[in-house]
């Protein structure tokens, strides 16, 4: 137990001086200050939980990317970059951009136009109570769990970098998040995500540039990677070309690998995640108009497609420049690649800039947790408390409840973090379990938006059977009955879940009664007049500020990036 509470590292990973704390202090003063600045704008429960639909698209667009730019993205993707090199780009260019554009163009008019306050509320209006409960409960539970995991990673990094005991780090971080969300609501969370984004870029851009300078630029980097790879007896081109990415997909055949990446990662996995995950969609719902909501993920793609340069390239540099990482790559020894970016910071950043880099990491990890808590808040209050537990109360009652649930979620996150500290495997399994809801959710949403015959009974049976299908495939994978290398297992589970969901939804709809047409107005394509699906002020905007032209530019840009870094 004492080991759990005080796992003090004997040796700190980074050698921070007292003045490295200055940027950390500046940043956190602003973070808490933002909460109080936004206080006046969070005076009703609606404003507190939904940001009162008041933010411009560039703010929500950056927050959309930032909410996802947490520990997994920075540490995990730089680790992948160090280990596998350029195929890691696919997680961004194939695994996010198409789904984000689809969300903006196709799905956002329904989410925003129907005036629902959450993704589960859309589910309620379209499919009724049973499907709503499955979605709302699984989402709320998943957010508490993931908030705890993010908090644990944050505590661990504070422990490593600054030497604080884990439990102290957990409590301090939870109090900071609680303070600004309970005072400023969702708008404060979004503002802080934007601020966090700028701080992360300020931290990672110098790291990338100095790292590249040290290895002799891009050509120096590629020739050194080739050298290390040849010494280890592996094919350097696997790391220096993003396609066909056999290291990533786990398929040996190049054709199968491309198919697997495009359909598995690019379609079933990423569409399930980006289009139905309320943590992301909530950022768009807080924007001030339908076109701004549509542009939120589209503007987000412009940011998202350049994030890999700030996380993957430092990973690749660490793979040749940091002696521990290069050695592990050369010998194939067991190594914690997640630390690659930290080790690179240690080796190339002077004190001062090192403080800013630590600030960036803390900012990123904390924003991830805050995004989970603010999304949990909305779903708990809008979808569970107001709808089922205590409907029809005055607004100040719900506003107070919103603050209580923020406190409860922050405290639960501390306990989840402590469990995560002790049972890492359990948390992995639980996270996988919740991810099994993604692909079927996407199937149920997309069928519901385009097929008015899909019935309430079909909604929940489709969801349940799709999730069970994903679970079955995963059990077969865990027990080793079927074995697929790399990401192959995840691709397979999501595909089976998606197909099962669509088939069950179609079959059950044949034998049950759909909702009457008038109740589906705003929720199904054919029953929603075009005026409700388009922004009334769209024609007043210059062409380059409209959603579809922007999406086309984003699409062309990402294809160009793929061609350059093939």
């Amino acid at each position: 137990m004492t080991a759990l509470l005080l796992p003090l590292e004997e040796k700190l990973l980074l050698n921070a001086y007292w003045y490295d704390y200055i940027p950390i202090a500046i940043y956190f003063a602003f973070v808490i200050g933002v909460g109080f600045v936004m206080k006046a704008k969070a005076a009703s429960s609606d404003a507190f939980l939904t940001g009162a639909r008041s933010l411009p698209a560039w703010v929500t667009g950056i927050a959309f990317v930032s909410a996802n730019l947490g520990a997994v993205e920075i540490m995990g993707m730089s680790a992948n970059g160090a280990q596998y090199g350029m195929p890691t780009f696919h997680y961004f260019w194939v695994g996010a951009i198409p789904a984000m554009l689809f969300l903006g163009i196709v799905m956002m008019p329904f989410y925003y136009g129907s005036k629902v306050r959450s993704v589960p509320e859309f589910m309620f209006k379209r499919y009724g109570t049973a499907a709503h409960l499955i979605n709302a409960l699984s989402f709320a539970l998943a957010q508490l769990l993931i908030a705890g995991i993010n908090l644990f990673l944050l505590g661990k990094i504070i422990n490593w970098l600054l030497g604080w005991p884990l439990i102290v780090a957990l409590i301090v971080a939870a109090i900071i998040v609680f303070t600004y969300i309970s005072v400023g609501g969702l708008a404060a969370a979004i503002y802080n995500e934007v601020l966090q984004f700028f701080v992360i870029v300020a931290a990672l851009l110098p790291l990338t540039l100095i790292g590249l300078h040290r290895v002799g630029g891009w050509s120096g980097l590629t020739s050194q990677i080739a050298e290390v790879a040849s010494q280890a007896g592996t094919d350097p081109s696997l790391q220096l070309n993003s396609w066909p990415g056999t290291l990533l997909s786990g398929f040996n055949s190049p054709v199968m690998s491309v198919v697997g990446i495009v359909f598995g990662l690019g379609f079933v996995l990423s569409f399930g995640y980006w289009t139905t995950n309320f943590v992301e969609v909530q950022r768009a719902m807080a924007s001030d108009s339908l076109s701004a909501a549509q542009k939120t993920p589209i503007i987000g793609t412009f940011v998202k497609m350049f994030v890999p340069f700030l996380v993957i390239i430092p990973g690749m540099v660490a793979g040749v420049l940091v002696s521990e990482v290069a050695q592990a790559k050369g010998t194939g020894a067991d190594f914690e690649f997640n630390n690659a970016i930290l080790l690179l910071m240690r080796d190339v950043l002077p004190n001062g800039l090192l403080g800013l880099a630590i600030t960036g990491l803390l900012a990123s990890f904390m924003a991830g947790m805050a995004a989970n808590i603010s999304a949990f808040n909305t779903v708990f209050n809008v979808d569970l408390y107001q709808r089922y537990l205590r409907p029809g109360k005055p607004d100040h009652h719900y506003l107070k409840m919103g603050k209580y649930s923020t406190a409860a979620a922050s405290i639960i996150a501390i306990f989840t973090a402590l469990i995560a500290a002790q049972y890492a495997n359990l948390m992995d399994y639980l996270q996988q379990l919740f991810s099994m809801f993604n692909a079927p959710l996407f199937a149920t949403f997309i069928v519901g938006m385009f097929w008015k015959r899909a019935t309430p009974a079909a909604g929940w049976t489709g969801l349940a059977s799709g999730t069970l299908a994903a679970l079955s495939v995963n059990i077969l994978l865990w027990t080793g009955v079927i074995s697929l290398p790399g990401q192959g297992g995840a691709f397979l589970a999501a595909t089976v879940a998606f197909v099962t969901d669509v088939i069950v939804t179609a079959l059950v709809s044949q034998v049950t009664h759909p909702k009457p047409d008038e109740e589906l107005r705003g929720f199904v394509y054919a029953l929603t007049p075009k005026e409700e699906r388009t922004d009334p002020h769209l024609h007043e905007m210059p062409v380059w500020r409209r959603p579809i032209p922007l999406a086309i530019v984003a699409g062309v840009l990402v294809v160009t990036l793929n061609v350059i870094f093939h």
Partner: protein
Amino acid sequence: MTSPKTTVKKTSDLTDIRFIIASALGLIGIFLLICAAFVGTSPEELAKTGDINANLWSGAGLLIVAIVMGIWWKIDPTAGASQGE
């Protein structure tokens, strides 16, 4: 004190996200410039970065971003938040 007429006209306000970003990045930029002037110029620190005064360049970069944000905030008060209320 202020007449209702003057409050109708939207002016740059301190709760605008661009002002917050500009001040946070500006302060961190100044901090890095101070670091560049007083610490981190020893040979072993310079060896880390490959003979670049990284604090200087990063600090200058942050200040420029902060100034651009501040100018945007000043000349277009409405782009940071909705004009509602």
